[in-house]
């Protein structure tokens, strides 16, 4: 298990041992979405509750996938996404961006590159958390 540091896009590709072509293909396969359905209207980013925290806004993430920009893999967007589905309900092309985000996470998680370091989480940190939060967090960020 390796903790993913905020490394540049190219470093992420090296870590994953995948090219952007392979990554985008895998994302489309896992999510069942066509990244080229997006015409960059920005409705998703306008409604995203986590937009302020993201390195790349939701619509920028989709654009990066369209142009195969590796920086999308080093952006924190997929990890700070809360799977709230606001993007999907508002998208005029019905692109399921939440599924695209999930697919991006799964590319790491299926290679045992967990994002939440379970071994480092102390019992003091968990003490005040309800299990609903812990279960959901581990489901989204560990493989």
């Amino acid at each position: 298990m390796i903790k993913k540091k905020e490394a540049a896009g190219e470093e992420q590709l090296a870590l994953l041992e995948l090219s952007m072509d392979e990554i985008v293909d895998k994302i489309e396969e896992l999510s069942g979405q066509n990244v080229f359905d997006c015409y960059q209207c920005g409705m998703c980013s306008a409604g995203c509750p986590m937009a302020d925290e993201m390195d790349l806004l939701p619509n920028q993430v989709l654009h990066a996938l369209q142009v195969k920009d590796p920086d999308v893999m080093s952006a924190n967007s997929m990890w700070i996404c809360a799977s709230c589905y606001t993007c999907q309900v508002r998208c005029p092309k019905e692109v399921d961006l939440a599924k695209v985000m999930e697919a991006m996470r799964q590319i790491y998680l299926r290679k045992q590159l967990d994002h939440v370091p379970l071994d480092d989480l102390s019992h003091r940190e968990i003490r005040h958390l309800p299990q609903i939060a812990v279960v959901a967090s581990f489901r989204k960020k560990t493989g």
Partner: protein
Amino acid sequence: MASKKPDKEMIHIHVMGKTYEVPAGLTIMDAMEYAGYRFTRGAGCRSGFCGACSTVYRHEGDYRLQFALACQETAQDGMYLVQLPFTPAPRAEYDIEKINPKENVLLQYYPEIARCVSCNTCTKACPQDIQVMDYIQAALRGDIAKTAELSFDCIQCGLCSMRCPADIKHYHMAQMARRIYGRYMSPVPQHLEDRLQEIAEGKFDAELDRLVSMSRKELEEAYAARVREEAPAESEKSE
């Protein structure tokens, strides 16, 4: 070496890919020893209690892997066998006197129980017929008493953790639950408390001193003359 009876039924077992002919009716452990293996690890009480002899096996023609204790399971013809003498599962460090037995204490020390996907693989791996998934679920919802109750028969063989896709350490976590239950939750046995108090107050000191200073002959006489329960009825008596 005892001579083989000519009509004794023999079966074939395969140990780590190598085939042996052994008498039918032996346990897996006895069968492997008959075949010439010597257990320096992965054998203990030989009575189904210590959990040392975890075995993974498969029946010929069946795709499923199955799990047992080598000292308890009868070897069958065509069994493919391997031993798992050790499970490298880490145990959380804690001081039972210092932990706060809140409901989520198990989640705190074993956060990976939150990764349980209810696949039931652990239950299928258990040689003690424990409902393992059920106790993990009880632990996840903070029911320490139920976790302790359901995991009571656990002998720490480790097969559940070996098979778990979420890398949960079922048996260590359950042991913690049982310890917490015993230390903080189970009712205090008052008669035990009373007796310990009596001992601390020295109620039995004089008698113990007397016993300790007796000679062997005096002890034998005292033993023969001890107060006993009524002898059983004539028909039940056995000498």
